[in-house]
Every structure is written in structure tokens, then in C-alpha cells.
């Protein structure tokens, strides 16, 4: 047995996790993350505002993973039980509503009740870990970290790990390995920046598509930046699925706390804010960029609050997309992306601008959000199911990518500009890069 394995085993053995408490266990991220722990620990306590709500979380967890055996490892309770069970727990996992004061209130209670050596993790998707830990005890801050699962956690394995300034580095090493080996996660360490790495990059692209949809319409935008550009789900359908309110909370938080070369693309378009005032929230409200009328799919008419059947929208000539998709279909991804770079027409220009912006923005975030591009690559691939920026560079070719970015009018990242010819940026040993190129 090799030395790294031995050191990994001793690191895994350095702490014991036998009891996990989940706060907010009636929410999707609460029960969805909580159920992951039932595969690794004998006791998981689901807490919610009432025991009934915690029971609902347990029922949803069973349905999510299709196993009644979840119930053999889960007990439930209300927040009245918080002090007692947090005193017994090895890990307290916070998944309450994404509001800073509410989370801080829970952490104050946890801080008073927990054992000094227990781990406290938050599933926040973008609130600052350092801010959340403000005012807490030394032992709390030392044992506190962000563990950002993506929804649904039983399917999406990409997970961000975020340290606060006082987090014990040995704890980070342990949680990283524990999550990989015991929970089947792909772990990405990010810095404590707004939206961390995945949402920072991902919602930049989604919001830019939303901005462009005001002029071009959501149906055309989802065609132009469709699956053939390296994603399973189209951008604006993704925003509808996530919910416009969540989208707004994420981009507003990033806009408020950061300033970067693509700041404008992260500002929520006013038409979305206006429609939200009328109750448009995406799928959860029955209408967003798209809605359904029976079997018919309708799309928002730009500049209005009305919808039209997608199949009645007059589309420009998009035959280049069909040609690229056909190359993906037979596995000729290099040729497909060469055709993407060479495609003519204003729609291809828009697509290249969005994709160039994605690549450029990702590489510009190295150092700010993650230490290397690999972290951003992994969270975009394993969290968003998008072709990671490095996969796009490798597939398109380095000089061709730089030329495309320059032509699109977005800044060329210095990492690309300085890279030696022939550099390959994505070198993961087991991820099939072909899976990111969808023939649609």
C-alpha cells in the first residue's frame, strides 16, 4: 500500500463522525444533504421548525433516494431540541433559509450548545463564511466551514469547500477527504468570495443570457447558447428551474460585494425585476422565461409580460447549430467546436461572445475564487454540468480560443495569453469530457 493512502487513512481516522444534526431538514438542501450523511454515519438528526416538518423532510429524503432504510438512521425533532442534540453531535449541518440574520441566530444557539470539538458546516450558496462566523467563540470559528452541496445533492457531486479565516486547516483536509471518500463528493476548495466559484461564474453566464433575452427573446437565446455549446440544460430554462428570486439573490449579492471586468453582465435586467413584481418567479410560479399551456411551450415576448408559442416564433437561419450538433452526435467534438468558431452570422457572434465571456471570466477568477483553474473547471463540470472552461479551450485549441475571445471583445486572460503552445488545461484522469457536448 502506498504512502499517500496510508496518510489518507490516518487523516480519515483523525476524527470520528457518528452523529450529524441537520438544521433546516425540511428544505431540499437540508434533507438532500442530510440523506448523504446517512450513508456514512449511524445517526442523523433532522431538525426543523416543528417535528412534523422534520418528518416531512425525512419522507422527502426517502423518496429522493428511493429507500426506506433512510429511516433506520434518522431521528427527527424541532428546534426546541436544538441545544440537546447539538450537544451530542459530532457535526452540525446548517441548511436554514438563506438569510444572514436567521443563520446568525441559529449559530449563536449552536455555539452555546455544541461541544468544543464538534464541526459546524453551512450549506450557504454564497453568504460570507467569515461574516456568518462573526461574534462566535474561538472554538466555533476554528471548527466552522462552508460545505456547499448543489441541488439535488444525491445526483450532483460537485461540492464547494470554503474556509473562514480562522478555520483549522487540518479540519479542512479532513472534511475534504471525508466528503470524497465517505460521501462520494468531488471537492473544490474556494475562497470566501461572493457566490464562491460556481455561482459566481455560472450566474454571470445565466444573467448575461437574461440580459440578451430582452432584445433577442428567451427562445432564441436558449437556442444560441444551447446544449451544443456544452451544457445539458439551456441557460434560461435553468434560471426558470432555479427560480428568479434565487437568481436575483445570487447576482445581487455578487454585484454588491465584488467589482470585476464583467460587472455589468451580473446586474439583474430591469425587465426581470418588473416582472418579478408581478409574481413571475420561474417554474415555481408557473411562468418565467417560459411557461406551458397544456402540451405547448410558450416563451416570454421581449418587452412585454405576454407569452407566445415557441413553435410560432420566426427564427433566423440556425442551420449552423444543426451542423455542429451532428458532429457532436458522432463524437467529433474537435470538428464541432472548430465549426462553432468558424460559423457565420449574428447569432453565431452572440454565442461566441457568451462562450468567450464564460472562458474569460473563469480564467480571470483564478486567484480570486480558487487557487487554480482546476477548481473552477471541476465545479462547472461536476456542479453545473457545463463543459468546463478548460475543456472548451482544449477542444477549440489555445490560439483559436484566444483569437475568438479577442474577436468577441472580451479581455483575454493572462493565463491563456502566457500559456505555452500545446498546453492542455484539463487533465482529470476519469472525467469523460465528451459528456459535456450535447448534440442539441
Amino acid at each position: 500500500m502506498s504512502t499517500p493512502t496510508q496518510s489518507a487513512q490516518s487523516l480519515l481516522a483523525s476524527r470520528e463522525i457518528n452523529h450529524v444534526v441537520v438544521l433546516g431538514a425540511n428544505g431540499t438542501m437540508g434533507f438532500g444533504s442530510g440523506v448523504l450523511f446517512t450513508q456514512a454515519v449511524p445517526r442523523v438528526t433532522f431538525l426543523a421548525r416543528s417535528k412534523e416538518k422534520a418528518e416531512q423532510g425525512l419522507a422527502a429524503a426517502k423518496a429522493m433516494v428511493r429507500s426506506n432504510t433512510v429511516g433506520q438512521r434518522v431521528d427527527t425533532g424541532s428546534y426546541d431540541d436544538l441545544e440537546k442534540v447539538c450537544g451530542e453531535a459530532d457535526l452540525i449541518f446548517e441548511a436554514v433559509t438563506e438569510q444572514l440574520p436567521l443563520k446568525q441566530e441559529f449559530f449563536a444557539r449552536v455555539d452555546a450548545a455544541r461541544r468544543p470539538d464538534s464541526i459546524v458546516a453551512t450549506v450557504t450558496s454564497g453568504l460570507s463564511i467569515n461574516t456568518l462566523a462573526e461574534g462566535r467563540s474561538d472554538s466555533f470559528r476554528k471548527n466552522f466551514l462552508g460545505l456547499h452541496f448543489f441541488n439535488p445533492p444525491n445526483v450532483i457531486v460537485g461540492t464547494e469547500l470554503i474556509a473562514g479565516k480562522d478555520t483549522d486547516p487540518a479540519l479542512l483536509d479532513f472534511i475534504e477527504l471525508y466528503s470524497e471518500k465517505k460521501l462520494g463528493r468531488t471537492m473544490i476548495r474556494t475562497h470566501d468570495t461572493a457566490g464562491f466559484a460556481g455561482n459566481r461564474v455560472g450566474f454571470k453566464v445565466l444573467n448575461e443570457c437574461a440580459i440578451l433575452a430582452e432584445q433577442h427573446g428567451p427562445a432564441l437565446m436558449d437556442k444560441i447558447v444551447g446544449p451544443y455549446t456544452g451544457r445539458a440544460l439551456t441557460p434560461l430554462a435553468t434560471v426558470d428551474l432555479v427560480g428568479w428570486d434565487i437568481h436575483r439573490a445570487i447576482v445581487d449579492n455578487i454585484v454588491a460585494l465584488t467589482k470585476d471586468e464583467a460587472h455589468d453582465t451580473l446586474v439583474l435586467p430591469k425587465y426581470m425585476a418588473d416582472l418579478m413584481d408581478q409574481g413571475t418567479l420561474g417554474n415555481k410560479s408557473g411562468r418565467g422565461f417560459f411557461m406551458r399551456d397544456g402540451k405547448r411551450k410558450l416563451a416570454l415576448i421581449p418587452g412585454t409580460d405576454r407569452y407566445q408559442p415557441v413553435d410560432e416564433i420566426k427564427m433566423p437561419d440556425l442551420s449552423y447549430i444543426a451542423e455542429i450538433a451532428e458532429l457532436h452526435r458522432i463524437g467529433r467534438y474537435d470538428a464541432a467546436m472548430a465549426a462553432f468558431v468558424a460559423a457565420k452570422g449574428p447569432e453565431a457572434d452572440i454565442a461566441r461572445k457568451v462562450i468567450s465571456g464564460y472562458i474569460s471570466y473563469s480564467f480571470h477568477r483564478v486567484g480570486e475564487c480558487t487557487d487554480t483553474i482546476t477548481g473552477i473547471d471541476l465545479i462547472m463540470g461536476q456542479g453545473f454540468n457545463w463543459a468546463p472552461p478548460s475543456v472548451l479551450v482544449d477542444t477549440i485549441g489555445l490560439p483559436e480560443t484566444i483569437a475568438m475571445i479577442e474577436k468577441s471583445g472580451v479581455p483575454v486572460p493572462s493565463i491563456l495569453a502566457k500559456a505555452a503552445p500545446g498546453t492542455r488545461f484539463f487533465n482529470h484522469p476519469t472525467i469523460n469530457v465528451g459528456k459535456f457536448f450535447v448534440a442539441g
Partner: protein
Amino acid sequence: MSKEVYILGGYQTDFARNWSKERKHFVAMIRESVQGALREAKVAPEEIESGHVGNFAASLYSKQGHIGAFFVEADPAFSGLPTGRHEAACASGSIALLAASAEIEAGRYDVQCVVGVEQMKTVNAAVGGDFLGTAAWYELEAKGIEFPFPKLFGKLGDEYDKRYGLKDEHLAEISAINYANGKLNPNAQTRTWYMNKEHALASDEFNGAVGGRVKISDCSQVTDGSATVILASAAFASKWAARNGVKLENIPRIKGWGHNTARIRFDDKVRESKDAEYVLPHVRSTILNARKRAGIADVSGIDCIETHDCFTTSEYMAIDHFGLTAPGESWKAVEDGTIALGGRCPINPSGGLIGAGHPVGASGVRQVLDAYKQVTDTAGDYQVAGAKNVQTLNIGGSGTTSVSFVVGA
């Protein structure tokens, strides 16, 4: 002329992928698999002299025949190469390997590319179950029957029960081990699935019976996937070893093979074996022939096994047929930990068909690739420490065609 057949490397696609959801043709799978194998094995496409494709039923799943021709589409350098497709139901991949290795032994070619491939998610479960029924005698055993194969392998369990007694808890443990091993395999279909022994034992809305005593957790699941290995003669392997700075004797070889075909109907097989020591004597013979050709006296010379656990009952059968226990006592190797990772002779460290997935035509090649990974100490988290000799068992139909290889350096 040397008769040795070397394995230079290979590649498998991620068996969790759904290529229909990616809206892809199976040629994309062949291309990714073959290109990956060339890369891993450090062999140039121009060096490949012949291509063999193992595939069960593209003619049904994709309405496409002439699958051997699609090998040529995997690389521009392959135009004009001799290729062929091999079919023996779930043993198709192994039959392709046998043909390729026989051509090397005969001195026809020095470098062969063998790819197993199946795209199964093109149709729903009921239609797919009917297609799989053609691996049995369709008219007599499958026509008009929903999910015929779980029922046939349920009958295998019943036969064990009748002759020796069989407890569901042992089948559940086999399922749990395969799923647990699959979690260690980055290419396994089920690596993110929720499973434990209690679930495998449960009979409820999430784990219903699909074929007599066979429940969902007892079944391997259909999926899409491909695996490829590059085989070479001693002459080419010597050159390859020199240019890669390795010793010829450290390159894994196919040390032995076994191959038998029994009567196709399950009931005929069982009737023929009613007075025999083993429930499926032809499977036993295949295993013994492979070991004999490898010069390995018995199972004590085997460090781990990749077997055909299309159902937990088929692995239960394999345990005593491999000789890990006396006939009918497979439960002992389940109970005493022999077959678990870390045990005396782990079975399916990869997760097998249940954990890793069973894209039918790919499974035989995937087994040999996993054997190669084990003996080259490159299996990662599912590595069996110090594995020197690994034996495979690949079965087509209800124990009808059986093929076994011994892989070792």
C-alpha cells in the same frame, strides 16, 4: 512463433452516462472508447492492424447492423482495416477478445483493438427487457413475458434452493458488496446510488420483485457504455516495451482462456445437470479450462475475480463454480468475507455488473480491462493489493455461452 497475447492498455467510458440524453449515436461511444484506449496504451492509430467489435443488439436498440464497420469511423487511420462484429449476448465482448487473441496466436496480426459497446437507453425498460429476451430462446422463454431474464435467473436461485438451500440474506450481501465496490470506481454506473444491505433485504415499494426471488437490488441495470483494450503479439509487445522503457515480462498477458456453450434453454441446462456436482457444469468447465491453460492449479492461484453478476444469483453460482467453496456452499464465502474487498479473493472489486453497470456488449471487455488494471496496480480506490493473477467470467444468456480469461504478468 510465440503464442503469447499481451494487453497494452485500454479505456472504458463512464457507465453512468446516458448517451441518448446526450443525443448521441453509438459511434460517438466507439470513438471515445477507442481514442481513450490508444491514448492510455500509447499506441498510434496507424499501428492497429485489425478491429473487433463486441456488440449484442445494436440492430434492435439502434436499428443498425454491420457494427464492425463503425470501428473504422473511430479514426481516419482505420480506413481499410479488417474489422468484424462478434455477438454472443452478454458474452459478446469476450467472444470479440477470443477472436482477436486467436488471430494473434495464429500470427495473422500483431496489434488488435477490441471494443465492446452497447447503447441501451434508446428504449424504455419494457421494450429493452423484451430485446434482452432474445439472448434466451426467445419464442420459448421470452416472448410475451415481461422482463424474462430476472425470471430465468430467479429460477437459478430456485434451483440452488432446491439442491442446497439458499438464503436471501446472502444474495443481499452480494448486492451490497457490489454496490459498495462500485462507489470506489469512478466509472461505475451506480457510484452515486443509495444502497445498503438493509435496502437489499427489504421488499417494499422501492425494491419490488421482478422475477420470483429476484428483486430490483439483485439486478444489474441496463446502461450505455463501451470498453476497449489493445492486444499485441510478443513481437510488437517487445518493441512497445523498449520504447516505453518497461520490461516485457511486466506487461500483462492473457494467460489462459476457457469457452463453452451449453444448451440455450435454461430448463434444458438444469435437466442435464441434475446428477452433476455443479448446477451449470459448462460454466465450471470454462473456468477450469482457463486456469489450466494459464498453468494455475486451482483458485488459490487467483488473487481476485471479475465475474458476471447480471443478478446476485449468477454471482452466487459463480462462487462455488470458481472453487471458492464446495458446490452448494457459496454462502460460506459470503459470510466469511472471502469475496469482499480485503478478503482472500475479492469478487468484482470494480462493482461488477451490479455496481459498475452492464452495457451488454461491453461487459466482457470491461472485465478484462479491470483485470489489467488490477495486475498493473492502476485500479485506484478499488485496487486489490498485490494482485498478480485475475480471472474473469462472462456469461451470455442463462448460463449458455461462458467465457473466462486469466490475466496476469
